[in-house]
């Protein structure tokens, strides 16, 4: 049977642009049809922006690759209209086990916080993720959304001008050129666009190799996450076992830097390790094996004139904590509304500099967390190893040591503290919804709160009057009012009111809080909206 990732999903088709007398100009060209490029394309197309997506391939991700999708990206996917198939297909787990050397030191059970539509995370192979996104692209195309997905269109040249970008494209039928007002480069860690522009990653924080394998096992193998520190089958390194849909388990074996990749990938070397991990009795079949090499680093700037970098093209982290695809989706979530406002002349060009500032902040947070996990998993000094081992030893007997065990901190949403787009705050309101934070879900009488937010500027009114619709210099702000019953809910008090009894929140199109007040004041909202759009 042909696997999903072997089927062309967007095969090459000749475009009219290839027969045009001179290069055709497009408002936005997205380079790369991975999770981030497709996310950008759907987001822009849903806002009515015509978008061309170029990919040098015509298939979804080869092998499982990114497999863990956190709650915040799932909320973004809901806004993009493709959260349901992901969550329906994905696997959630609650029990995790931690092993140190030869023994299990503890097991834990995750308790979900109540009143969230989406779970803390799901496990899903990247090929399904991309497949569902391509299906979403097809669905919005049917509805007339202007998105043009071009497979086997490889960008081989890029020329940046003051008011546009020229792209050289190679196809099975030869080369052609197009022009773009704006380019969003989502072409992965090895980003050809980055190389073509002579840009590179700064500051290599660290680098590592992982053997990643998908194995098919008997269905009765438990749906649990197992993490090993310094196991007998992978001395001095780590190992991770994770459940994916379709009875496929994902195994990540850390290999260190100086290894022979071809040798490590051979089944005769892989299978004995897996048998040692899974036990002599486990029946498994190897579906896919690969070596994943990463370097933890980021570009100095994500914006270069009219070219905007997002996802792995802009930053890379270790796989611990699932911060790759999850942070990439937060990049385009942050970028697309800003790009549209600038394209429509409703915000100055400098609004796009805040994409750089906010997402560099996000990338640095991820690099910090990734570095901390790596320091715990692969201690760099004798003392670091002594403390790591002491922590694991204590975790077997004492609860207190378990939060110190760091096998990767799962991606949590980024708060843009200190952003120039942040407006008025009220200190007596909850910290988790301060300006710069993403809104927090809650169950309301008219459905999940997150489903009612996003895609435009909004005023969330809690227990106080706000006009239904406001307009300031071409930007509309719509009201989302909670009913009296919801306003008295302890969850709303905990997440939005704090010590106050009423609240007004100005929310950005990416569902992040721009400003908040106790009562509505038109002038204050106008000022906060100007601030949030870099209009002064």
């Amino acid at each position, binding site marked *: 049977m042909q696997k999903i990732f072997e089927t062309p999903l967007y095969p090459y088709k000749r475009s009219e642009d290839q027969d045009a007398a001179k290069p055709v100009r497009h408002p936005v060209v997205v380079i790369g049809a991975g999770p981030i490029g497709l996310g950008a394309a759907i987001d822009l197309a849903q806002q009515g922006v015509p978008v061309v997506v170029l990919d040098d391939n015509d298939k979804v991700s080869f092998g499982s690759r990114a497999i863990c999708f956190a709650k915040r990206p799932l909320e973004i996917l809901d806004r993009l209209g493709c959260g349901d198939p992901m969550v329906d297909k994905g696997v959630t787990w609650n029990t995790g086990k931690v092993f140190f050397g030869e023994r299990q030191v503890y097991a834990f059970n995750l308790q979900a916080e109540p009143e969230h539509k989406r779970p803390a995370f799901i496990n899903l192979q990247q090929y399904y993720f991309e497949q569902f996104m391509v299906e979403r692209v097809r669905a919005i195309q049917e509805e007339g959304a202007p998105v043009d997905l071009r497979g086997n269109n490889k960008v081989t040249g890029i020329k940046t001008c003051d008011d546009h970008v020229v792209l050289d494209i190679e196809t099975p039928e030869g080369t052609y050129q197009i022009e773009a007002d704006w380019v969003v480069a989502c072409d992965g860690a090895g980003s050809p666009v980055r190389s073509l522009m002579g840009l590179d990653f700064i500051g290599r924080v660290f680098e590592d190799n992982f053997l990643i394998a998908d194995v098919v096992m008997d269905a009765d193998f438990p749906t649990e996450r197992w993490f090993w520190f310094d196991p007998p089958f992978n001395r001095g390194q780590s190992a991770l076992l994770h459940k994916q849909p379709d009875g496929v388990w994902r195994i990540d074996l850390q290999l260190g830097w100086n290894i022979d990749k071809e040798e490590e990938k051979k089944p005769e070397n892989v299978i004995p390790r897996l048998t040692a991990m899974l036990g002599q009795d486990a029946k498994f079949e190897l579906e896919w094996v690969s070596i994943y090499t990463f370097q933890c680093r980021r570009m100095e700037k994500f914006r270069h004139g009219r070219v905007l970098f997002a996802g792995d093209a802009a930053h890379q982290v270790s796989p611990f904590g699932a911060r790759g695809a999850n942070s990439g989706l937060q990049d385009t979530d942050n970028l697309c509304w800003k790009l549209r406002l600038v394209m429509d002349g409703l915000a100055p060009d400098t609004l796009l500099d805040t994409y750089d500032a906010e997402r560099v902040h996000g990338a640095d947070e991820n690099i910090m967390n990734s570095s901390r996990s790596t320091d715990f998993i692969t201690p760099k000094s004798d003392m670091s190893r*002594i*403390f790591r*081992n*002491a922590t694991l030893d204590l975790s077997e007997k004492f609860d*207190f040591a378990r939060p*110190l065990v760091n096998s990767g901190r799962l991606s949590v949403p980024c708060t843009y503290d200190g952003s120039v787009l942040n407006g008025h705050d009220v200190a007596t309101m909850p910290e988790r919804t301060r300006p710069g934070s993403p809104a927090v879900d809650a169950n309301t009488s008219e459905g999940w709160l997150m489903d009612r937010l996003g895609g435009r500027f909004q005023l969330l009114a809690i227990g106080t009057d706000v006009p239904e619709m406001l307009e300031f210099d071409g930007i509309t702000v719509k009201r989302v009012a909670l009913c009296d019953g919801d306003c008295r809910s302890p969850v709303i008090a905990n997440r939005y009111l704090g010590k106050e009894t009423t609240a007004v929140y100005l929310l950005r199109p990416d569902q992040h809080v721009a400003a908040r007040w106790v009562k509505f004041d038109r002038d204050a909202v106008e000022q906060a909206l100007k601030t949030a759009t870099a209009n002064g």
Partner: protein
Amino acid sequence: MKKQTKGKLCTAPNIGSPDDFYESLLAIHEGLGMDESDALNARLILILANHIGDGEVLQEALEAARA
């Protein structure tokens, strides 16, 4: 000279029977090799740090030990 601000870390004598404690501290290491003693000290630091809990006190303690 910079005026020293009073921190949260207790630096006045606070152990009831200092000699007894010191003897116990040495006794607990008896018969252990350097590696085992290092491991024990690390566990002890983590246990005490958790008992203190307060981030400011811990930070002051780290700085006091390094000074």
